[in-house]
C-alpha cells in the first residue's frame, strides 16, 4: 500500500496547523494524541491512531519547551508512526516503536527553523530603521514559513517513500533493536520528569515530590494525576496561607490578618 497523494497533502496541512498551534494557543492539534488520532482518521484506522497517539502522549507528558529549549518533535513522530503502522498493517505497537526515533531525529529540524528566523528578525530591524512599519510587521508573519517547512518536508518525504521505508525497516532492522527501542520508549518519559525536577525547586520542596510519588505509587489504579494535582493545590493553599500569615505576623504581630473573613455574599439566610 502506498499513501495516496491526497492523503499526504491533507496530513501536510494538518501538521502545519499543528506546529502553529504549538507556538500559540496549544489548543490540541499540536499534541501527539491529536497527531495519532487525526492521522488514523484520515488513513481509515482511527483505533490504531488513538492508541499510538495516546501512548506517545503519556510517554511525553513531562516534555515541554521551557525557555525556548528544543525537545524531540513527537507530533511529527506520532503522525508518521501512525501512518507507518497502518501502511505496514503491523498494529499500534509497531507504530509507537517507530515514532520515538523519528521524533528524536527531527529535533534537528526544529532547531533549523528557530535559527532561520534570525534572518527575519534582522530584516525587521532593517525596515524599522527605514521607518517601513508595514514591512516590519510582514517579517513576523514570514516567520511562520520556517516553522511550517520544518514539519512539512519530513512528513511529505517520509510518506511519499513510506512503502520503501517500511520494507527497509522490516527486512534490515533486527528484533533486538526493535525490542530495545520499545523499552527505550517506556523509559523515555523519565527525561521529561527529570527536566521538570531540574526546573522546579526540588531541593527545597522535596517533601511534595515524595507525597506525589507515594500517593501514585501506592494508590495505583485507584488514583490519578488530577487527584494528585488537587492534593498539590491543597498543599499549595496551606503554604500560601502560612506564608502570608507569617509575613503579617512579623509586621503587625498578627492581629487582624487571620479573622475569618466573610464577604457579604457569604452570608446565608437559612430560613423560611
Amino acid at each position, binding site marked *: 500500500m502506498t499513501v495516496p497523494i491526497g492523503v499526504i497533502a491533507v496530513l501536510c496541512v494538518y501538521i502545519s496547523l499543528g506546529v502553529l498551534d504549538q507556538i500559540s494557543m496549544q489548543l490540541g492539534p499540536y499534541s501527539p494524541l491529536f497527531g495519532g488520532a487525526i492521522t488514523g482518521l484520515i488513513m481509515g484506522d482511527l483505533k490504531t491512531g488513538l492508541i499510538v497517539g495516546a501512548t506517545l502522549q503519556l510517554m511525553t507528558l513531562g516534555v515541554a519547551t521551557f525557555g525556548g529549549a528544543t525537545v524531540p518533535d513527537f507530533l511529527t513522530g506520532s503522525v508518521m508512526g501512525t501512518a507507518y503502522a497502518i501502511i505496514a498493517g503491523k498494529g499500534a505497537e509497531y507504530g509507537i516503536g517507530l515514532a520515538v526515533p523519528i521524533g528524536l531525529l527531527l529535533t534537528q529540524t526544529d532547531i533549523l527553523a528557530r535559527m532561520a528566523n534570525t534572518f527575519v528578525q534582522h530584516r525587521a530591524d532593517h525596515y524599522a530603521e527605514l*521607518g517601513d512599519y508595514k514591512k516590519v510587521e510582514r517579517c513576523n508573519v514570514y516567520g511562520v514559513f520556517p516553522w511550517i517547512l520544518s514539519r512539512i518536508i519530513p512528513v511529505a518525504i517520509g510518506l511519499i517513500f513510506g512503502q520503501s521505508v517500511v520494507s527497509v525497516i522490516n527486512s534490515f532492522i533486527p528484533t533486538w533493536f526493535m525490542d530495545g527501542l520499545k523499552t527505550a520508549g517506556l523509559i523515555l518519559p523519565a527525561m521529561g520528569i527529570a527536566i521538570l525536577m531540574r526546573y522546579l525547586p526540588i531541593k527545597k520542596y522535596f517533601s511534595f515530590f515524595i507525597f506525589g510519588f507515594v500517593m501514585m505509587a501506592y494508590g495505583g489504579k485507584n488514583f490519578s494525576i488530577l487527584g494528585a494535582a488537587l492534593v498539590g493545590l491543597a*498543599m499549595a493553599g496551606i503554604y500560601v496561607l502560612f506564608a502570608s500569615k507569617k509575613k503579617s505576623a512579623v509586621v503587625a504581630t498578627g492581629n487582624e490578618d487571620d479573622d475569618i473573613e466573610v464577604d457579604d455574599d457569604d452570608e446565608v439566610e437559612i430560613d423560611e
Partner: protein
Amino acid sequence: MNKLDKKDINKVYWRNLFGLQWGWNYERMQGLGYSWVVMPALKKLYKDDKVAMSKALKTHLGFFNTSQPMSHLIIGADLGIEEKTGMEDEMAIVGLKTGLMGPFAGVGDTIFLAIYRAIIFSIASYMALSGSTIGLLLPIIGGVMIAWVRYKFTWIGYRQGTKLVTEFADQMKTLTEGASILGLTVVGALIPSVVNYSLDLKYKMGKVTLDINDMMNQVLPSLAPLLIVLFSYWLLGKKKMNSTRLIFVLIALGMLLGNLKRIFGL
C-alpha cells in the same frame, strides 16, 4: 484623553494569542513577535511622532521571552504606560518588560506547560486508550478557557499599568512557590503513572522462580521507574549533559534493559 480604544486593545489581544512566537528565533526569541503584537497600538499612539515611534519599535524588537499566557499581563501594562507617558520614560517600559518576563516565565510555564498539560492530556489519553474520542474535547475546552483568561490578563494589565508591577512582584514569590509545590506534587505522581517500565527478569532456581521486578515492588512500588528518573535527574546536573544527550543515554539504556533476557541467556 484615552488614545487607545477598546478595539485597539482587543486587536493586540488577538495578535498576542496567535502570533507572539511566529518569528521566534534564538537571538531575540519573542522580540520580533512582541513588536508585531503591539504594532496596532503603537501606530495609534505615535501616529504624529516619528521619533517616538522609531524609539518604541526599537525597544520592542529587543530580546523578550516569557510564558505566552502571562505575556498578556506585561503587554497590557506596557500599553497602559505608553498611553499615558509615551516613550518618555523608556526605562520604565524596559524595566517592566525585562523585570517581569523572568518570574512570569517561571510561574506560567509551571502552571500552563507542566501542570495543565500533564493533567488534561493524561485524562484525555486514558479516555482515548479506552476507545473514546470524546476525551479529545477536553484540551479544546481547556484551551478556550485559557484563551479567556489571557483576554482578562490583557485588560487587567492595561488597566492597572505600573501598579501591577509592584503589586504582582510582591505576591510573585509566594505564587511561584505555591505553583512549585503544586508542580512537584504532580511531578512525583507522574513517575509511577507515565514511566511504565518494569524489569523483565525472572530467575529460576530449582522449583522457585525469582521475579526481580516483584521483589523490587515489594520494597517500594514503582521502584524501577523512580530509580531511572533519579538517574536522569542526576545526569542532567552534570556539566556537558543536556536533554538531547540524555535522550541518547536513555535509548542506550533501553537497548540494554530491553535485551536483558538475551544478555543473560534466559
